[in-house]
């Protein structure tokens, strides 16, 4: 039985004060984003758009085998080829293996992972990097890579995680087992409760490998600057890999600088080190700048993938429609190297029971190495996989109970104060119920079939997805906000902008607090040398973390200025509102301060231009800027395997509803209507928030119907974008985004994160809609036309 876990103390950024009236000027509006203008005029310099004089071109030689011993590598021919400046293998890497904290600063046992730069001794997946080349031109580098002679001794390998768990399975790594980690959740007695449940459903679900297909392939340029600092400008979600890179090169941490320009998409695929280490090594060896950009085929082959999961679920309910127990067994394919697999598995474990009140829970989860491509972070980070499973369980149970999918869920949704599957009592807003009702309503009248070969169906799915990192990580973020003398504002923050408006949100927050317009704010971001470190752009944490840090810093700056302005105007600072570039004296009652307490006459009025306040501060030693740190809730890792209590700061709750048309001749599924309803706490930028719902929904649609990164014997056979299919504009309807704003999130202004949550429940909503249309739940993704037709034919045959 889980012991009560003390809710860890966490810092809460205070809710909006009287001086930040709920009539926000900039927060919550549909503001055009800063970076949008640069992008639409073609001025943004992405990683591959950058050049340095004397730049060489890098290329990676990759393993042709999924499992093999590396007997010998002969680089002699390659080294002598025209234009070649360096050919590197594992022996040339000062520290070829390091333990990565994946951008965190706190050592949390069980959450660090082996990072091996170049294959050494054994290769563990097809496409693993074996050697690096730098040459004057790209063609020369390509030719030199082909001239490196590698002697492999192929080994049998293992390609199925269930096989890989067996005691006599081929050992992928150097340990005695292929099991990377395991977790369990025990609440009550699920086995006994299931035996006495009135209705039970049981099923096995399978979801495949997936690729992020960011349109910008991995890329970067590295050089050594005039101070001997190895500088890497790369498309990355984590500039704080600079520590790992320094360790790899055996140089001090302050001798490596990582800069993240605007990314052309990340989605978790640029969360691990991709090109950075290779670039640093080649630049270091050649003493020349080096550029390395992956081809699309190389990206599909060799970078991290979404984890396949095999999931066995058993769920029981009482006759009155309330859930009584859930058992889940989760097995994830970690691929050739663990990377973030333990973390992803933990997310799955915590979210395995979904947004429901379930008194008895038993979850066992395993991440297992195989010789498939390594798997790591992918939008949703383990939550979408289990959401697919539990939402199909919910619909199946509802059907058995004779309740509608919505009604059954409504009897079981978590609300504020309830405990999650791991016993975390939720303190913030939990509006799943509301989102579900709105989502279904927004589907409107059912569409009529367009032919006699079409069946229409509707489905919904509710999800649960954390925002903010595991609290074991003791996460923190820093931001600097400061005024120039002319009243314009500078924000410096290490945030990485992967396209979700991460940098622009900070401008909005600063502008709101400091009474200026967004155009008055310049954001410097993503530079380990020049911007305070804000942590990774992952885990839907940036708005929460750097947003709060920026809010803190902006408020601190405002408060200092308000003190000075108060002195000048002869009122207490509580009476002052900073807006439209001036301090305005609020009438005493509006400021929420009694006239007596403020010590002044109620009729005092007046204003002070911002510039005057700034001048006064500058002259009297009052700082015009502030560097603030925001800390997320923190917890020590006790028994990491027993998952109980609070693991995340908070969750975002929402529901997808879909209407589909199924062609019973071909099995093709068309999504006719698609609704995404989410409580985002407070939308900072309305267009951005809608954009996340719309984009996340189509991510779910791709997962449901199209995306299947196929490997066979470890070889990637969907090797380009004509075989790995993602949704085009014709494959999706207009998503209807419904933004609910409870104000009850932990982020700035009560915001919750939305980047990943919006992508978690889309797929099961579609699959449940298909089940409504044809009466069959297809338990494997993607729900291709062939799988649908096969299911129909099999039923016909019975």
């Amino acid at each position: 039985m889980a012991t009560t876990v003390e809710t860890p103390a966490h810092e809460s950024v205070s809710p909006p004060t009287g001086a930040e009236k709920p009539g926000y000027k900039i927060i919550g509006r549909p503001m055009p984003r800063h970076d949008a203008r640069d992008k639409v005029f073609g001025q943004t310099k992405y990683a591959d758009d950058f050049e340095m004089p004397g730049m060489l071109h890098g290329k990676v030689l990759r393993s042709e085998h999924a499992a093999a011993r590396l007997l010998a590598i002969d680089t002699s021919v390659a080294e002598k080829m025209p234009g070649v400046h360096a050919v590197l293998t594992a022996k040339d890497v000062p520290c070829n293996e390091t333990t990565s904290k994946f951008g965190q600063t706190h050592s949390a046992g069980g959450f660090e992972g082996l990072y091996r730069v170049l294959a050494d001794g054994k290769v563990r997946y097809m496409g693993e990097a074996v050697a690096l080349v730098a040459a004057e031109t790209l063609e020369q580098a390509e030719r030199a890579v082909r001239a490196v002679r590698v002697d492999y001794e192929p080994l049998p390998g293992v390609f199925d995680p269930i096989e890989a768990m067996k005691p006599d399975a081929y050992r992928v790594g150097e340990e005695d087992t292929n099991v990377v980690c395991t977790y369990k959740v025990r609440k009550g007695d699920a086995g006994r409760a299931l035996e006495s449940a009135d209705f039970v459903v049981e099923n096995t679900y399978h979801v495949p490998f997936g690729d992020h297909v960011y349109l910008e392939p991995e890329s970067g340029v590295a050089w050594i600057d005039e101070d001997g600092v190895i500088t890497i400008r790369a498309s990355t979600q984590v500039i704080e890999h600079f520590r790992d890179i320094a360790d790899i090169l055996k140089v001090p941490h302050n001798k490596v600088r990582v800069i993240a320009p605007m990314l052309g998409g990340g989605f978790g695929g640029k969360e691990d080190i991709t090109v950075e280490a290779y670039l640093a090594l080649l630049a270091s060896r050649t003493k020349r700048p080096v550029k390395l950009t992956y081809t699309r085929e190389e990206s599909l082959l060799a970078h991290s993938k979404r984890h396949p999961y095999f999931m066995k679920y058993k769920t029981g309910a009482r006759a009155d429609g309330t859930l009584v127990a859930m058992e889940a067994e989760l097995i994830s394919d970690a691929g050739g190297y663990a990377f973030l697999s333990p973390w992803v598995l933990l997310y799955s474990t915590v979210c395995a029971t979904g947004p429901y009140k379930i008194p008895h829970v038993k979850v066992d989860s395993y991440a297992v190495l195989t010789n498939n491509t390594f798997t790591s972070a992918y939008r949703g980070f383990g939550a979408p996989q289990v959401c697919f499973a539990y939402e199909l369980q919910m619909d199946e149970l509802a059907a058995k109970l004779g309740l509608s999918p919505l009604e059954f869920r409504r009897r079981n949704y978590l609300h504020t104060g309830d405990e999650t599957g791991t016993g975390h009592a939720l303190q913030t807003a939990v509006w799943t119920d509301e989102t579900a009702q709105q989502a279904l309503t927004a589907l409107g009248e059912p569409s009529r079939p367009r032919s006699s070969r079409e069946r229409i169906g509707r489905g919904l799915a509710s999800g649960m997805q954390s925002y903010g990192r595991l609290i074991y990580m003791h996460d923190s973020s820093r931001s600097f906000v400061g005024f120039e003398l002319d009243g314009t504002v500078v924000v410096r923050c290490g945030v990485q902008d992967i396209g979700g408006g991460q940098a622009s949100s900070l401008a909005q927050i600063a502008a709101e607090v400091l009474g200026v317009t967004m155009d008055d704010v310049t954001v410097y971001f993503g530079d380990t040398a020049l911007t305070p470190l804000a942590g990774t752009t992952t885990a839907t944490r940036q708005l929460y973390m750097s947003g709060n840090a920026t809010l803190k810093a902006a408020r601190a700056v405002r408060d200092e200025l308000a003190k000075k302005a108060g002195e000048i105007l002869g009122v207490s600072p509580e009476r002052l509102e900073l807006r439209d570039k001036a301090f305005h004296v609020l009438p005493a009652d509006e400021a929420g301060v009694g006239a007596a307490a403020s010590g002044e006459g109620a009729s005092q009025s007046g204003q002070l231009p911002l510039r005057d306040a700034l001048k006064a501060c500058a002259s009297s030693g009052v700082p015009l800027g502030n560097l603030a740190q925001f800390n997320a809730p923190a917890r020590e890792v006790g028994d990491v395997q027993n998952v109980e209590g609070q693991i995340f700061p908070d969750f975002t709750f929402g529901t997808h509803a879909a209407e589909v048309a199924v062609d019973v001749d071909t099995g093709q599924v068309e999504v006719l209507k698609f609704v995404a309803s989410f409580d985002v706490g407070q939308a900072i930028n309305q267009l951005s928030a809608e954009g996340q719902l719309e984009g996340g929904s189509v991510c779910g649609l791709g997962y449901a119907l199209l995306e299947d990164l196929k490997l066979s014997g470890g070889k990637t056979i969907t090797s380009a974008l004509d075989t790995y299919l993602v949704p085009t504009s014709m494959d999706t309807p207009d998503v209807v985004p419904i933004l609910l704003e409870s104000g009850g999130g932990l982020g700035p202004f009560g915001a919750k994160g939305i980047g990943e949550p919006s992508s978690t429940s889309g797929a099961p909503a579609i699959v449940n809609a298909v089940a409504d249309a044809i009466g069959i739940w297809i338990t494997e993704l993607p729900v291709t036309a062939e799988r649908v037709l096969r299911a129909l034919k099999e039923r016909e045959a019975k």
Partner: protein
Amino acid sequence: MERHSIAISVNGQWMKTEVTALDTLLEVLRNSFGALDVKNGCGQGDCGVCTVLLDGVAVNSCLTLAAQADGREVTTLKGLGTPDDPHPLQESFVRHGAIQCGFCTSGMVLVAKAFLDENPTPSREEIREAISGNLCRCTGYKKIVDAIEDVAGEPGRVGRRS
């Protein structure tokens, strides 16, 4: 190695270089002519980020040999409009929040421009078909369709730059 001298007008400016027969227009635009607003996403016509207008027609520059563009006019995003003189499509994309990571934007704006030149009053379905060779992984396409639809309607309004 066999080289060919070619001249291509890029956004109204004639530029010359030497290419091999198999160099693609994408490679030459980015590597020889500095047109970095043209992006490289897949190299074989599956993603559309490399879209340019070739004599006003939207094509994948990765599926066009540079030599095939010899003597012809290429329009890239920068040739459509600038901050001082923006094209209505560019303003509309910003206004509608149709840009997230921005990597598909160049292709989307150019294909939309060419499409609206031919079909000034399209339905949303027609817009979706017109951009169906341009992938986007961020927006879910909806705001892109909104942005294009907003500019459609008046032939004169869009056709001012050919």
